[in-house]
Every structure is written in C-alpha cells, then in structure tokens.
C-alpha cells in the first residue's frame, strides 16, 4: 500500500466517522422520540393485562390484539367479530372523511379569495386565518359550545327574531361534532391550498377564458389540476388529526358516541385494558399510514400527469 493510498483511506474513515457524528443528533431524536415509544407500545400490546389497570410485565399474550378484532360474549363465551370496535372505527373514518370534504369545500374558496387579493393585502388575510391557532383547541371547542347550546348565541338570536319558538338541539349531536371539527381544522386546509394557488399562473386562467371555456370548466380543467398538490397536502393534514380527534367529539358530542380516540382512552382508564389500548393505538397508526401511502401515490401520479 502506497503512502498516498493510506492517507486517502484515513481521510475516508474520518469522513465516515464525521458523517455519523453529524447525523447522531437526528438519529438520536428519531430513536428516542419516535421508534422507542412505538416499541414500548408494541410491547405493551402483547402483555397480559393487570388486575386494576397496568400490565403484568413480561407475561405475554395475544389477548390485546385478539380483542381488537374479536369479542368473547360475557354470558355464553361465544366468540364473534368485535362489532363495537368496527362500529367506532367506521364512525371515526366517516367523520374524518366528512371533515376533510367540508374543510375543502369551505377552505378552497377562502384560499382562492386570499390568493387573488393584491400582493400586499394577502398577508393580512393569512394572518386572520392563523389567529385561531393561537388559542388552545379546547378553548376553541368551548367557544363553539357557547354558540350552539340551547341558551347560546345562535338559539337566542333565532328565538328573539321569532324564527323558532323553542331552541334547536344542536349540542351533543353529530352535527355539533362535525361543525366543531370543520372549524378547528379549516386553517390546515386553507394554508396548503393557498400555497399552491399563490404559485398558480393566472395567465393560464386567462388563456382558458380566451378559448371560450366557461367558468366551471376553467375551475375544473385548469385551476383544480394545478392546485392538486395543495389540495392533497391539505387533505392529509386534516384527515390524520381528524381520525384520532378526542377533545371535539367528547365536548360537543357529550361523550355518548365514542370515536377511536375515546375508545383508546377508555382502555387506559375505566376499561383497565392497557394491552387492548396499545393494540388499538397501533391499529389507528396503521390506518393513518395506509391513508398516507394512498395519498402520496395519488399525488405523485398527478405530478407526472401535467408535466411539472
């Protein structure tokens, strides 16, 4: 081995060491903050449940995972599909999907409005959109409760105006939960959609009109395809927290109809079944991951579609 080669090898080694050293903080954070807790949860989901909560450490069983999907009847011990869990899962997915659709329905025009303001004014509008973020989600939820409850602003005004004679029951209904969810997650849709609308070349819209495209066609064939990445990003940002939503369904829904988040909480609380709670949490994460993969695949397809 020549001297030059030895020096080069030494440099390479130092280089590799240096790279590891530099990436150590990132790796450390990923392992401690992400992989570690996940592993603990996985471990708990396979342990035997304790008598009054907690788990019996290092005694393993598949009961937690078994009861995610199946249930043993309390009275005759027959095994059947856990329809309670499936019902709650379906309710959560449906609510998250409806929230996503509605935030898009209200968020897109909002973002379009902001993006078409003169450049100097846009920041003010964006600033207004982000103001609710400064407040805790619980406080925002209680604000909605104050608005829609029986003696709240909404019902009082309608009754004073003589439009209704007795208060409309909105609190503790599915409508209330949906209203709260849309309100809370709306900014998460507006911001990414705005980001892609801002980059939209409005000369393309003008070209569309020049070629006698009606408004709807311009929206459908020019604006929507060009802002698809923003819409997809917004949908992801709304759908993922919405499916695990806990506070809004509990406060506005009255805690009667459980969502996945409430079901998981129940297992760590009064249900006293930590392994089942852990298994349910992992199930929720798998659902979110699948949804994410689905979106990402769609997003990359659309990206190739119009040659950006």
């Amino acid at each position, binding site marked *: 081995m020549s001297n030059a080669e030895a020096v080069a090898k030494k440099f390479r080694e130092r280089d590799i060491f240096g790279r590891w050293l530099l990436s150590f903080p990132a790796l450390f954070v990923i392992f401690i903050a992400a992989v570690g807790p996940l592993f603990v949860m996985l471990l708990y989901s396979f342990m035997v449940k304790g*008598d*009054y*909560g*907690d788990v019996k450490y290092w005694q393993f069983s598949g009961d937690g995972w078994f009861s995610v999907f199946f249930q043993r009847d*309390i*009275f005759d011990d027959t095994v059947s599909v856990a329809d*309670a*869990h499936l*019902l*709650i899962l379906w309710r959560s997915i449906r609510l998250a999907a409806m929230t996503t659709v509605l935030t898009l329905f209200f968020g897109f025009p909002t973002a379009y409005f902001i993006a078409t303001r003169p450049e100097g004014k846009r920041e003010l509008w964006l600033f207004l959109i982000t103001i609710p973020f400064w407040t805790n989600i619980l406080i925002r939820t209680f604000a909605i409760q104050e608005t829609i*409850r*029986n*003696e*709240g602003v909404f019902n009082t005004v309608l009754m004073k105006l003589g439009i209704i004679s007795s208060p409309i*029951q909105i*609190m*503790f209904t599915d409508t209330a939960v949906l209203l709260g969810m849309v309100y809370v997650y709306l900014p998460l849709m507006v911001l990414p959609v705005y980001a892609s609308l801002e980059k939209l070349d409005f000369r393309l819209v003008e070209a569309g009109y020049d070629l006698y495209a009606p408004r709807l066609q311009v929206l459908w064939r020019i604006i929507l395809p060009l802002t698809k990445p923003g819409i997809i990003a917004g949908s992801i940002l709304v759908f993922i927290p919405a499916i695990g939503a806990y506070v809004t369904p*509990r406060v506005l829904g*009255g*805690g*009667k109809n*459980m969502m996945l988040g409430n*079901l998981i909480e*129940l297992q*760590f*609380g*009064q*249900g*006293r*079944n930590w392994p089942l709670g852990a298994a349910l949490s992992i199930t929720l994460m798998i659902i979110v991951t699948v949804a994410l993969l689905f979106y990402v695949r769609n997003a990359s397809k659309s990206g190739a579609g119009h040659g950006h």
Partner: protein
Amino acid sequence: MKFLKTLAVSAAAIVMGAGAALADGELNIFNWGNYTSPEMIKKFEEQYKVKVTITDYDANDTALAKVRAGGHGFDIVVPSAHYMPIWIKDGLLLESRPDQMENFKNVDARWANVDWDPGRHYSVPWQWGLTGVIVDTSLYKGDINTWGLIFDPPPELTGKINVAPEMNDVMYSAIKYLGGEWCTTDKDMLRKVRDKLVEAKPKWIAMDYGVIEKFASRDFGAALYWNGAAVRSRQANPDVKFGYPKEGFPYFMDSAAILKDAKNVENAKLFLNFIMAPENAAMISNFAKYANGIKGSEQFLGDDLKDAPELVVPKELESAGTFIMLCTPEVMDLYSKIWTEVLK
C-alpha cells in the same frame, strides 16, 4: 418578521416572570377538577411560604394511570375510597401516618378508622358525599327519589338526561335499581343490568362531567351525579333538586394521601395536617359543597351549606346508602366489559 420577534420576546418575558415568582418550597397537588378551594390553597401558601400547583383529573382511573406511568411530579393525590386499596396495594402511596399528626384528633370518629385505609396510615378525609339524581323540577313534578328517572325516564326528561361517565357509580345504581347487590356475579342479574343500560342510553343526552353550568343553562333536565354538584347547580338554577334513590345509592369519600415518589414530602405532610384543621376543612366544603368529615368544621361553614337539603340524607332513606367497595378483579373485569358494551 419584526412582529414575530416581539412576540417571542414577550413570551420569554412572561415565562421568566413566572419563574421569578416561585417561593422557596413547592407542593404539587393532583386532585379532581373544580374540587380544591383556592382560598384554602392561598392560606396554605402564605402560612408556609410554599408555592402550590394544582393539576386536575376527572376520574379515578385517569389519576391511577397517570401516576403509574411515572414522571408525574405530583406530591398529593385524592383517590376515592374504593380505589384506595389499589393505590396502597400497588405501593403508590407513602405510609405518612396521618393518624399520628397533630390535627388528627379533629377527624370525626366515623372516618378515623375506615375499611379502605385501616387506622388511617395513608390518608386523611377530603370530602364525602353520595351519588343520586339531580332533577330540574320545572320539567318534572313527580317523585325524585328513584333511579327510575335515569333508567326508565319519564317522557318529560327523556333526551335531557346526563349520566356521569363513572363505571362504578352507574353499575352500582343500575344493579340496585334492578334489585341486585354490588359486586354480584349473578349472570342473570348482570344480563338484565346490561340490557337496561343499553335500552336507557338512547334516552340520555350526554355522559359527561361538568353539569353545573348545563343545569344553569337548562341544557340538562336530570343527571346521575354527585350531591355537591347538586348544591352548586341549585345555586345556579333554583328549580334544581336532589333525589336520594330509595333503591339504594352509593356513598363515596375521597381522601388525600402522599405519593411514594413525592419530591416535597415535608410540605405534603404539612398540607395533610393543615386540611384536618376545622376552619381549613370548612374552606374545602364551602368551595366544593360536600361534607368534609372533620369535627368542628360546621361552625365555619357558609350559610348556604348549613342547611342544604343535598347534604342531609332524609332519615327514612338513610339506610338505603352504602359505600362502594372494591370488587375482585374478576368481577371488575366483568363490569368493565358491560361498561364498554354500553359506551360503544
């Protein structure tokens, strides 16, 4: 950008200001929400130069889960009677011997030696009360001393009922309503209990905590809830009355205890002794409106409590109440399965 910088600087200033306000000692109390008298805490802080922080929980199981998970930093917790044996058995509490403290002489004989903490080696009485039915009598005029209002509600109350999301209280009430005994394993009885709960739930509007403001705003017509909350609901809405179900109702007592991994044990001991003094115990009651179990506190009670009908069980119904006891893990397992099925 300049705006953001200003914001960051002012946030930092607020945080540092809060840090500077800290006194020499600290005490972290983990207690039920809306349950700790701020005046009493202020008095304790001034008397002992200790900075007190209060964190809320809404259910015994929540508190238990959080403390078990570790790293909580709390010194004092206030579990209910039927949970105390779990806390003690799991080694979560410090054997602080309140029975040897100076003010222990004030504890009412009824509460000085209790099943859930024999000889009071761990805990001191905080407050006690019972679960019954709170009713808005502007909606319903009939007999209110029955669980029937919750489990077979009259049309006036249907769709206006709130049930506390507490497994033990609800299971106890339903079992008693159907003529069974607490901790029963009788499958026929439990099947009836489950069917009754499943049948009744659609007639309820919510299963939630925080009823006082909802009775005030007339969102609720009736609730399975605690008597102290009934006092406060009545003060907010004079039509509200409290019923003692003749089928049988559960008593509860919450007791304050020091956690084994408490960091401020000496301050915590001072606090336990402090709340056994009659005038301090009365401050707790005056705030949360439950009885406290300390002799001599009556003279310090507010006028609204001295003759509150919610705090005095009618003579003829006295024998209907019993304490909820801890059942075996097998029974609790059965009950929580029924509970999950009801809650879905």
